[in-house]
C-alpha cells in the first residue's frame, strides 16, 4: 500500500487548525536538516578552512532568505493570484509568479499559503548552501554570498513557481493528462537537484583545489578533516528530513495526517538502505567501509526520499534508497578519477544525481497514468534549462566577484586568509604535502 492515497491536482480543502499547527511544528524542526548539511560541508573540508566553511553556511543561508523575501517570493508566486504565462496550442504555460513584493499581504493569506511560504524559505536556504561544500577550500565567501543571492533571487523562484506555484510543470496533469503534474513533495528538484547542479556549475567555473590533480599519477587524496562532524551531521539531517518530508507531503500533496507515519518510515528506510548499500560497496571496493562515503550514501538516501517518501511503499523506499546508496560512491569515484571534478562534499552526486533519481523513482511509484512522463519532463527542465542558466549566471558573476581565492590564500587556508583566525587556534599548522 502506498504511504498515501492517489494524488489529485484539484485544489485542497481548507486546512484545519490541527493540521496547520502540526505542519507548522514540523517545519520549525526542518532547520535541523540545514544544520546537518552545514556540519557535513564543514567536516568534509580542511581544518584550515573550517571556520570559513561554517560561517559561509550561515551567511549564504541568511543572504538567501533575505533576497528571497525581497524579490524571490514574488516571482515564486506563492502569495500571488496572477501568473506571467504563455498561451501555446490552447494551453496556459505559467512561467513566473507575479506576487506582491516584500510579501505584502502575508498576514491575510490562507494558512496553506503561509505554510507554503515558510517551506520555501527553508528550501531556499538549503538550496543555497548545497554548492558551498563543493567549493570548499577555494571558494571566496563574498562570491559564495553573491551566488546565494543569485540562486535565491532568480533561479530558485523560477523552479519553485514551475513546480509548487502552479507553473507549467505543476499543470502538466491538467494540460496534458500527465498524472498529477510534476510531483516534488520534499524539494528533490527545487532544493537538491538545483543545489547539486549549481555545485557542478561552480566546480566547473572555480576549478579544482591546488595540487588535487597533479601532472602525474592519480589525484591527490584530500580527506575531510573531521569525520565526527560529518557523521553527526548525518544524524541531525535525519531529524530534519523526517519533518521536512512530512511537512512537504501535507503542503504540496495535501496528504492526510494518516499518511505521515508512512512518509516518515519511508524516509528512514530509504536512508538506511542507502547506508547499507554504500557500506557494502565501499567494503568491497576498498576492503574497509569508508566513513565519508557512507555519510554520502546516507545523505543520498535521504535526498532520494524527498521525492518519493510520500508516494512509495516501504519496499519501494528501500529499493530507491539502495539504488542511490549503491551508485553514489561509484559516482563520487568516477567524478574525481575519471573526469577530474574536485567536489569535496560530494554534492553533485549526493544532491544532484540522487535528487534526479528520486524524481524518476517517484514517477515509477506514483499510481497515476502518465506520472513517469511528467517526472521526465521535469528532469529535462532541470538538466536542459536550469543547469545552463545557473552556469551562465555563475560565469557572469565570476567576472564581477571572482569565485576563486588567490593561490596564497589557498595555501594558508581560508580561515586565516578571509577571517584572520582559524577554527582550531591551538592546532599546529603543518606543511601540506600536496604542494610539493
Amino acid at each position, binding site marked *: 500500500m502506498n504511504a498515501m492515497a492517489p494524488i489529485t491536482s484539484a485544489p485542497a480543502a481548507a486546512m484545519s487548525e490541527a493540521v496547520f499547527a502540526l505542519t507548522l511544528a514540523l517545519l520549525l524542526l526542518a532547520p535541523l536538516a540545514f544544520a546537518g548539511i552545514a556540519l557535513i560541508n564543514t567536516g568534509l573540508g580542511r581544518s584550515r578552512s573550517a571556520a570559513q566553511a561554517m560561517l559561509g553556511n550561515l551567511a549564504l543561508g541568511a543572504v538567501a532568505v533575505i533576497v528571497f523575501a525581497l524579490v524571490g517570493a514574488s516571482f515564486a508566486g506563492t502569495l500571488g493570484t496572477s501568473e506571467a504565462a504563455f498561451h501555446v*496550442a490552447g494551453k496556459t504555460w505559467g512561467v513566473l509568479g507575479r506576487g506582491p513584493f516584500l510579501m505584502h499581504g502575508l498576514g491575510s493569506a490562507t494558512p496553506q499559503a503561509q505554510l507554503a511560504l515558510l517551506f520555501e524559505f527553508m528550501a531556499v536556504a538549503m538550496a543555497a548552501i548545497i554548492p558551498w561544500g563543493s567549493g570548499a577550500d577555494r571558494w571566496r565567501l563574498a562570491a559564495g554570498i553573491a551566488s546565494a543571492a543569485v540562486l535565491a533571487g532568480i533561479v530558485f523562484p523560477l523552479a519553485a513557481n514551475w513546480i509548487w506555484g502552479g507553473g507549467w510543470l505543476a499543470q502538466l496533469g491538467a494540460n496534458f493528462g500527465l498524472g498529477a503534474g510534476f510531483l516534488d513533495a520534499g524539494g528533490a528538484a527545487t532544493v537538491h537537484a538545483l543545489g547539486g547542479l549549481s555545485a557542478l556549475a561552480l566546480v566547473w567555473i572555480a*576549478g*579544482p583545489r591546488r595540487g*588535487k590533480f597533479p*601532472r602525474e599519477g592519480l589525484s591527490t587524496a584530500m580527506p575531510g578533516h573531521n569525520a565526527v562532524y560529518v557523521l553527526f551531521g548525518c544524524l541531525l539531517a535525519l531529524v530534519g528530513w523526517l519533518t521536512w518530508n512530512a511537512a512537504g507531503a501535507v503542503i504540496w500533496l495535501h496528504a492526510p495526517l494518516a499518511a505521515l507515519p508512512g512518509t516518515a518510515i519511508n524516509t528512514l528506510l530509504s536512508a538506511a538502505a542507502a547506508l547499507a548499500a554504500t557500506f557494502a560497496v565501499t567494503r568491497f571496493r576498498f576492503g574497509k567501509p569508508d566513513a565519508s562515503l557512507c555519510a554520502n550514501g546516507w545523505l543520498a538516501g535521504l535526498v532520494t526520499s524527498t521525492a518519493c517518501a510520500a508516494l512509495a511503499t516501504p519496499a519501494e523506499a528501500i529499493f530507491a534508497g539502495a539504488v542511490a546508496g549503491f551508485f553514489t560512491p561509484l559516482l563520487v569515484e568516477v567524478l574525481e578519477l575519471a573526469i577530474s571534478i574536485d567536489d569535496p562534499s560530494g554534492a553533485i552526486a549526493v544532491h544532484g544525481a540522487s535528487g534526479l533519481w528520486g524524481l524518476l523513482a517517484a514517477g515509477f511509484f506514483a499510481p497515476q497514468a*502518465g506520472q513517469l512522463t511528467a517526472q521526465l519532463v521535469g528532469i*529535462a527542465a532541470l538538466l536542459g*534549462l536550469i543547469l545552463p542558466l545557473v552556469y551562465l549566471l555563475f560565469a557572469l558573476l565570476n567576472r564581477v566577484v571572482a569565485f576563486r581565492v588567490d593561490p596564497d590564500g589557498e595555501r594558508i587556508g581560508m580561515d586565516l586568509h578571509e577571517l584572520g583566525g582559524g577554527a582550531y587556534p591551538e592546532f599546529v599548522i603543518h606543511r601540506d604535502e600536496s604542494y610539493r
Partner: protein
Amino acid sequence: MKYAGLLVMPAGFFLTLAALLLFPDPTRRLAFVVCSLVVEAMGLAVAVRGHMPARGANRP
C-alpha cells in the same frame, strides 16, 4: 566545446516541449521525451569533457 555542450542541453529541453505539443499518444510522447533526455545527456557529456582540466592545472 564546453559551450557547445551547454547549448545542446537547452536544445534537448525544447525537444521535450515539442513532444508535449506534437504527440497526444502517451507511448510516443514518452519515447520522444526519453530521446530528448538522451540529447541532453549528450550535451552534458560534451560539457563535462570540455571542462576537464589538464593534469597539473589548478584553474580552468
